[in-house]
């Protein structure tokens, strides 16, 4: 395949990119290429050697590498071309791609359509603004995961973890199994940041201390980290000085948030949603730039890879249709985040087709009713910011929309108790 003939170029060979590429081929696009900066396809799944993947997509409990492998195999079977060690360095609004590749040299080409699937990155110590010295031994949880699961090293033997995101909790268990002691998982919120199953299976089952409503106020140590100071926080998340105490450690892991990686999207002129940090998309996952689509964690950070795959398949299908001259979604109805709703993806829908909405709430609440304008309403026992809500709107429900509707508000209302 010559790059000049590429129909769909997918940026990123993680779960999102591979799913998009397969679907693009299956939809009929001839030449589909994945540009992946790492040594091989599969993205971060290869370092996620724990199980819990594919429970929904495959109805099976798989490890990360197993889940990735199924997609990589299928991509090869469907004739997707993968270019590893190929880093896209630029995308123009006219869809011109430039990339540096170890195997292919310096590339410039213009595909008929593009799927953005760059995923997300972890917040660094600098971005979190943790005060103190700047010693060695501070890693994001994902970097530590790579060292432990791929490279074969244990960063240290007494660990503190800031943030209770899923990777952090999984690394707490992983490092405990490797013989390290996890002195504490420190979470600023009154509840954990990741999935409940990880709190139970990774922290409680291994007696790992979880300090809710606490934060780190100082890092100690000149060359290697020696300790952290932790403190309880008040309602405004401000540390309470009188509660400060020192916890000795030789390693600090950070698992306090993920940021969709959209530097290339910005270069292409794609409009980003200030809440999700990802592109604003319509129900076909087209961004604000015609012919550029996006799927997976680059759009918004998911809890489950299964949803990443589904969402990206949609992006891949739409990119293929675009490349083959098809028309995108017609009509734009804005979805507006109402009471206790942080965001909704997609940001716009056509109102014509069946659509799945992904949402997150701002605050934990019990006994609520989710209302999508006046077309759907659903009672929920509990909602948490860490657990994504997923609601499917059927064509029958969408028929209730009045002619000329331009906006639908989604609310998470308190349910009256009877």
């Amino acid at each position: 395949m010559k790059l000049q003939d590429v129909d769909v170029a997918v940026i990123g060979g993680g779960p999102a990119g591979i799913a998009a590429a397969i679907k693009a081929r299956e939809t009929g696009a001839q030449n589909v290429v994945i540009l992946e900066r790492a040594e091989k396809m599969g993205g971060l799944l290869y370092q996620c050697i724990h199980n819990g993947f594919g429970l929904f997509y495959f109805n099976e409990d798989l490890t990360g590498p197993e889940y990735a492998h199924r997609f990589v195999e299928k991509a090869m079977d469907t004739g997707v071309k993968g270019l590893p060690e190929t880093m896209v360095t630029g995308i123009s609004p006219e869809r011109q791609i430039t990339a540096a590749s170890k195997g292919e040299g310096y590339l410039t080409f213009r595909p008929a359509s593009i799927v953005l699937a760059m995923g997300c990155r972890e917040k660094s110590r600098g971005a979190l603004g943790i005060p103190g010295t700047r010693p060695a031994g501070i890693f994001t949880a994902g970097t530590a995961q790579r060292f432990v699961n791929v490279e074969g090293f244990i960063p240290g033997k007494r660990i503190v973890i800031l943030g209770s995101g899923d990777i952090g909790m999984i690394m707490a268990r992983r490092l405990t199994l490797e013989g390290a002691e996890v002195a504490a998982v420190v979470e600023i919120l009154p509840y954990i940041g990741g999935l409940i199953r990880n709190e139970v299976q990774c922290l409680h089952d291994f007696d790992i201390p979880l300090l809710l409503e606490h934060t780190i106020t100082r890092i100690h140590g000149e060359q290697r980290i020696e300790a952290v100071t932790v403190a309880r926080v008040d309602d405004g998340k401000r540390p309470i000085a009188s509660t400060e105490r020192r916890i000795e450690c030789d390693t600090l892991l950070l698992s306090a948030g993920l940021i969709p990686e959209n530097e290339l999207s910005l270069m292409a002129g794609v409009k980003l949603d200030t809440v999700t940090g990802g592109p604003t998309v319509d129900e076909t996952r087209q961004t604000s730039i015609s012919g550029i689509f996006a799927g997976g964690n680059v759009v918004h950070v998911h809890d489950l890879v299964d949803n990443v795959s589904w969402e990206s398949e949609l992006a891949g299908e739409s990119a293929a249709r675009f490349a083959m001259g098809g028309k995108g979604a017609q009509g734009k109805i804005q979805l507006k985040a109402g009471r206790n709703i942080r965001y909704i993806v997609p940001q716009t829908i056509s109102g014509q087709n069946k659509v799945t909405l992904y949402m997150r709430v701002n605050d934990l609440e019990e006994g609520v009713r989710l209302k999508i304008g006046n077309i759907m309403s659903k009672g929920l026992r509990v909602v948490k910011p860490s657990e994504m809500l997923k609601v499917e709107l059927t064509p029958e429900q969408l028929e209730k929309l009045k002619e000329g509707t331009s906006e639908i508000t989604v609310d998470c209302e308190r349910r009256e108790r009877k």
Partner: protein
Amino acid sequence: MSELKTEVLIIGGGVLGTAVARELSRYKVDATLIEKEVDFGWGSTKANMCIVCQGADHLEFRKEYHRSRLVWESMPLMEPMCQELEVPFNRVGELALFFNNSGKEKYEKMMARAESRGITTHQLLDRDSLRRLEPNIAREATGALYDPSIAITDPVRLTIALAGNARQNGVNVITGTEVQDIKAGAGGFEVKTSQGNISCEFVVNAAGMAVDKVAALVNADDFIVFPIRGYVAILDKKVSDLVSHEVHARPEAPGESNIITPTVYGNLFIGTPMKLARRGDDATNREMAVVALRNARRLIPDISEKDIINSFAGFLMFRNWELGWHECVVNTSSTVPRFVNVSIGFPGVSAAPATAREVVKLLSREGLELRENPGFNPYRKAITDFTNLTDEEKRKLIASDSRYGHVVCRCETVTEGEIVEAIKQGAATLDGVKFRTRAGMGRCQSGFCSSRVTGILARELGIPEEEITKKGGESRQLLYKSKELIGGRE
């Protein structure tokens, strides 16, 4: 090194020490530079706003000050020096904002003083012309004093280049060597270091934060300096459009100077609250961050905390901090002959070229014989900068060496080829690679590339990965191998 004899010993591999070393290498002098860290420029040079100023922008600068003279004399020297050494240098210009008439009058006074020194580059801008230059500036600013001659550079790269060029020209440059004691005798000095003894005839003490402590070892401390801590936050490149000049205003409270400046790589720096602090305590704290952000927003209201990718604190050694101005120490000790103390405090980088010349003069006055080194080569090649090559250059480079097609640091687009070049030039740590190539300096702060850079360092240096350190000493990144803690074998 167990025993070493040298004519001139330079203590300290910061911007001043290395500038002196390079200046001395113009002559046939047997010179040695020792640095206690494993690399150059990791003290005050590293904790820097990266501005090359001409010294006319502060009321405290007066012709009777030694320091002002050194800064002024350095002005025409810095750009050619950066060109010779292929170090980034960018004349961005400076805007000193004022918010009312009294502010304006103060700047008019400064401008007059600068003009009396023959510095005529300044212009007073009204609000409209200011906004044309910097559309995002605070609406409250009523005008600015504009100096187009102010520039920015990369002080650590400059220091590495100065050290490298000095070495090319014959100076013995040694890292990881800390001075422990100095004895003065009739024939010269006996210097005890962590790596052995050095005997020398002349000493240049450019020990930065430890300048007074090193001088005190031999009772050459005929000066007092105070450690002043400054703080800088680094903003993501994606907000580089917010400001294109170095912008500052007079502080509202002592120590609360506020400044925003572009860097040569497209990040912005905000800073720098300054305070007297315990020496070496370069930990950041919440208060510094809050003050820096608040003051930066006085200049550019759109500056946001969420664009901060990292922050750091570092020290300047000031004399007379309490008086609100300060003087430098660039002279032969009045108590110990042939012992030259060098400490600028601020702005050390800007004053480095002329300071180096002056130190050589002082040494000559003390009896050092200066014969020209006919082989002196002022030029030094920089590491390839892949990002700034043209498409055609990139294509050719990757075709000739595929390692340049392997992007290791994705935030800063640093290739394996550049990292290997840096290691060949002397980088032996993650920070050493970072300061030479920017790998790990971007928005993810090495989350993605640290494992890859560790692997490349281990491969190129021929040592196991677990011996790779962040910054030398006990700063190993990976303390154990898999299964080591549970007594098993892999």
